[in-house]
Structure formats: structure tokens, C-alpha cells
């Protein structure tokens, strides 16, 4: 049952990812990307991390992807018009990368991770990924990184507004 769910959701994620790179229409690519995000969210749920799954749906699929689709619509980029696309699919780079992919794949399949004992103490799997454990990490151990994220987001807003402003 568990394996079946993984295979269905994982297959959906892979199919969506492939369709992102194979669609000729940019809007279709972005919509398949939303599908990929949602499939990943279900995988996160299967991995007992409910909070991350919710963030994946709200932040990734909800905010970032809608932002990108909005930009595509605004720039009116529906016509991709890539004649060289199919040619390059067969070129040497494709083969090199494909070999690379196979190597990584073998690495991923051949080894299962060591089951390490966490230092947070014995939580049950159901408790792992609950929001209060994450909150505890963010606001105690991770406080410095959390503050720096706020600096990064400020900088990103300042830069984006400056670049996109018409003057």
C-alpha cells in the first residue's frame, strides 16, 4: 500500500517534470510544474512531514508558481518557437548528461541511507515533522539563519523593484 502510493505520486512527479521540459508552450510548462509541486507535496505527506507538505502547496504551488504564470501572461510569452529544440535533444550533450543521470541513479538505488539515531531523542515517526518541533528548531537553534532569510527577502524585493521599475 505504501509502496503503491509512492509509485503513483512519484510517477506523477516524474511525468510532470518531463512534461515541463518537453512542452513547447511556456504556459503549459508552468502548469505542469504546478502538478510536479503538488505531487511532491503528497510525497512529503507520505514521509510524515505535514508542515512541509502544507508549505509546498501554499508557498510553492500557490505563491511562487502563480507569480511565474502571472509573469508569463504579462510578457505574453505563449509562443516558444524553438526549432533547435528537437535537434539539440539528439546532440552529444544529451548523451553525456544521460550517462551522468544513469550514474547518479545507480548511486541512489544501490545504497539505502544509514539509519542514524537523531539527537532530538526518541520521537515517534508520527510526531516527526510536526509544526512545534520545527518551530523549536527555527526559533532556538536556527535563529541566525532565520534572521538572515529576512535580510535576503528584503534584498530580493529591493533588487526586483529596482530592476523591473520603468523610469
Amino acid at each position, binding site marked *: 500500500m505504501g509502496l503503491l502510493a509512492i509509485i503513483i505520486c512519484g510517477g506523477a512527479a516524474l511525468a510532470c517534470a518531463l512534461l515541463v521540459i518537453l512542452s513547447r508552450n511556456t504556459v503549459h510548462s508552468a502548469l505542469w510544474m504546478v502538478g510536479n509541486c503538488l505531487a511532491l507535496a503528497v510525497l512529503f505527506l507520505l514521509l510524515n512531514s505535514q508542515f512541509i507538505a502544507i508549505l509546498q502547496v501554499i508557498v510553492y504551488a500557490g505563491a511562487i508558481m502563480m507569480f511565474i504564470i502571472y509573469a508569463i501572461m504579462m510578457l505574453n510569452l505563449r509562443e516558444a518557437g524553438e526549432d533547435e529544440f528537437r535537434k539539440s535533444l539528439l546532440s552529444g550533450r544529451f548523451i553525456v548528461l544521460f550517462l551522468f543521470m544513469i550514474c547518479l541513479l545507480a*548511486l541512489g538505488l544501490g545504497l539505502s541511507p544509514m539509519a542514524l539515531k537523531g539527537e532530538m531523542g526518541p520521537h515517534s515517526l508520527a510526531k516527526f515533522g510536526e509544526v512545534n518541533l520545527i518551530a523549536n528548531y527555527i526559533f532556538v537553534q*536556527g*535563529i*541566525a*539563519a532565520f534572521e538572515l532569510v529576512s535580510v535576503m527577502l528584503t534584498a530580493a524585493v529591493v533588487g526586483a523593484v529596482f530592476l523591473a521599475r520603468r523610469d
Partner: protein
Amino acid sequence: METLNFILPPSNYVAVMPQIVLVATALIVLMIGIFKKLVNASVIGYTALAGSLVALTCVFLSGQQAGPSATFAGMVLNDGFSFFLTLVICMIIVLTILVSLNYGRFFENIKSGEYYALVLFSGVGMIFMATAGNLILLFVALETMSICIYALTGFHKDQLRSGEAALKYFLLGAFGSAFLLYGFAFIYGATGSLDIIKIAGFIKSHPQILHFKFLVAGLVLMIAGIGFKISMVPFHMWTPDAYEGAPTSITGFMATGVKAAAFAALIRVILVPLAPMEHSWVTIMWVAAFLTMTVGNIIALVQDNIKRMLAYSSIAHAGYILLGFVAGTGLAQAGMLFYLMVYAFMNIGAFAVVALLCKKGEEFNSISDFAGLGFKYPALGLVMSVFLFSLAGLPPTGGFMGKFYLFTQALRSGYIWLVVAAGVNSVISMYYYLRVVVIMYFKPQPAENAIVLNSVSPGIVIALAAATTAVLIMGIFPSYFLSLAGNSIFSLM
């Protein structure tokens, strides 16, 4: 529902004081930028300069406290290495702002509050990269730096090549950080922690893990990811384009600040935690060092644009610095830090001279534009010659001492062929550096379209004088700086 009680870890705010000052200054500068119409435009730049000087003072005051320590639950490390790199990065920020004050007289966008705020924000990212004790903080800091630099690269909004450079840098930079993250993920999977000290402890107590393929995969992906930032061959493709298209003041900042921070991150994550895997990464670094310096120097030979030439030269210099990883002794690593410091001064100085040669809304970037400048502006010619001699590695400059030190250490560790290659490369590089000097002094200035420097702001004079002095002092009396670099490497946590 139980209530949550967050007990903050004991935190040493003095250790992060320079970063706090820089963030505060950036916010103030943004606020002043809103009221641009009411105040003199130069107020923005001078506020940023004042803030960065305060940050530099904070480094001196807070620096070298008793013993290395970790604060913010191990996220921030406060050791001699942090002190050294924070010092170098703060000096780079001050010099960049001094250069920008002059450069901004030719370009309207460089005067804006956003420009200075982004420079300061990226400086915060760089400092956190050098002081991070946790891969989470290291990654966020790297992205803070990169996102600011992507935006700054596109700051000449009226020039197509600036936007194009920003596009290329952005796409390849984001691609590189994905590799870096995947490397972090594998290291996390192998060692069960993202804390650098805990990773080091885990690897030391579980030697069998060294044959675990996750760790090797993590190492390779991580080197590739950071390799994008230090423009290591074969991940250097973005460098010449981004350097050429960016505003010249930012090119200097990218060539020195980004590189110093990225090398600091590489030293932090590789030298101490992954020291037991030395046999794996020394081979990678050997090949990378050889390719990086050779490719950089050979392509630099045929460049006609000075910014592009300096871009390839900066690739080549990354190759020389990588020698320190190959040699592997503590002294070689100290030499690496020393070279990083010299490199920062000589490169930002060279870009400062290039940033001087502008007229309203236009840059003079061709090497032939330098013709006759040596006699027309003797001080400028002299200063540029010092920087170029130092880049070429000629005595009595810091560049010579840095190279001498790195090469002898590598030789002592037995990497004869690599040192021979590095020597040949240095000789090749002399051609294109000295070509600029020859053009400056032995070619007459063209009659039309000649460069005229009307008035120069006092800031850039101070910047050039400081950089020249630093390059010469490090060349003639290197021992103090070498011992500073040595102390910082040996206190590395």
C-alpha cells in the same frame, strides 16, 4: 495544547556586530533614497561609507577575542578565521563604496539608495558565509550575497549588455546553487548533521563512513556548486560575460568580495570537517587548479576589453589559490588566505582605475583606450602599473610574495609538475598584464576621442592610495600579514 517556550541560545551579539551595523546602514540608506529629491544625492553614498567604516571599526574592536567560540547554537563561529575574513570583506566593501562614489558621477543609477543598500546587503551575506558554522546559514548567506549581486549586475538598465549579463549570471548561478544544495543533502544524509563541527566529529568517530558513496557524491557536488562561485574551470562560463556587462564598480566587488567569501566557505566546509577525505578532494583540486589557471591565462591573452581580460585573469588567480588546497599543509593554507587578501587589494585597485575612465553614461573599456595615459596622468599610470605588476607576480609587490609562498609550499609537498605548470602560467600571464603597461607608456594618445579626467573625487584617491600602499606593504613586509593569516588558519574550528 501545550504552550511553546522558546529559550534563546546564549548568543554573542558582539560577534555579529559588523553584520548588524551593515544591515542597519542598508535600511537607513534605503530610507534616505526615498527622499532623494530633498537631499543632495551624495548623502546616500556618504551614509553608506560611514556605515561600512563603522562596521570595519567593529571588526577591530570585537575581533580576536579570547579563543575561538561558537554562538547562536553553533550557527556562527567566532574564531581567528572569521576575524580575518570579516576584516578583508569589510575593507572590500569600504573600497567598493569609495569607487562607487566616483563612478556614480557618470551613471544616474549608481547614485540611488537601492545600489548602496544592495552592496551592503551582499556584504552581510559574504561575512556570514565566512563565519557560518552550519550549512543552513552558509547556504542562506550565499544566496543573500548572490541575489544582491544578480540585481547589481543588471544595474545599468539602459545598456542591453548589463541586463544580458544579469540573465546569464542569474541562470548559471541558480543552477550552481542547486548543485551545492544537493551536495549538502548528501552530506546530511551521510553524517546526520548540517552543523560543521558535528559533521567533523561524526566523520572522526565513524571512519568507515569514508567509503560511503553519499559522502563522496556530496563532496563532488559541493565542490561543483562552490566552483560556480569561484569561477573554477569548467564552471567559469558566466565569469567573462557577467564581469564585462556589470557596472565596473560592481565588477571589482564581484571579483574580490564574492571570490573571498566563496573561498572562505570552501575552506570552512572542506578543510576541517572533510579533512579525513583529503585523498579524494586533493585529486579534484589538483585537476581543477591546473585547468583553471591554464584556461584563464590562455584565453586572457587574446582579449581586447580590459574588463574581460581582468575577468579571465581572475579565473587564473582562482587557480593559483586552489594550489593551497592541493599542497595541504597549514602553511600553504595560510598562504592561500594571504593571497586572497593581496588579490582583493590589487584587483579592486585595477578595477578602480578602469572605473575612473568614464564619461557621462559611457565606459572606456578597450585596452587601446589606455594609450598615452601613463604620461598624461603620471599618478594614475604609476598606480595602475603597480596593480598590474602585482597581478603578474613581479617583486616588490604583494602578488609576488603571495605566489612565491604558495608555489614553495606546493613544491615542498611534492607537487612539482603542478608548480611547473603554475610557473609557466605566470610567465604567460606577464604578457597580457605588461601589454597594458606598454600601451599606457609607449603608445601615443589618439587625437580624437581621448580620455579626459576632469576632476576626481577625493574618495577614489584615498581608495587607490590605500590599495597601492597595501599591495606594496604586503610585498615588502609580508611577515605580519602572513602570521595573521597563519593564526587564522590554525584557529579554524
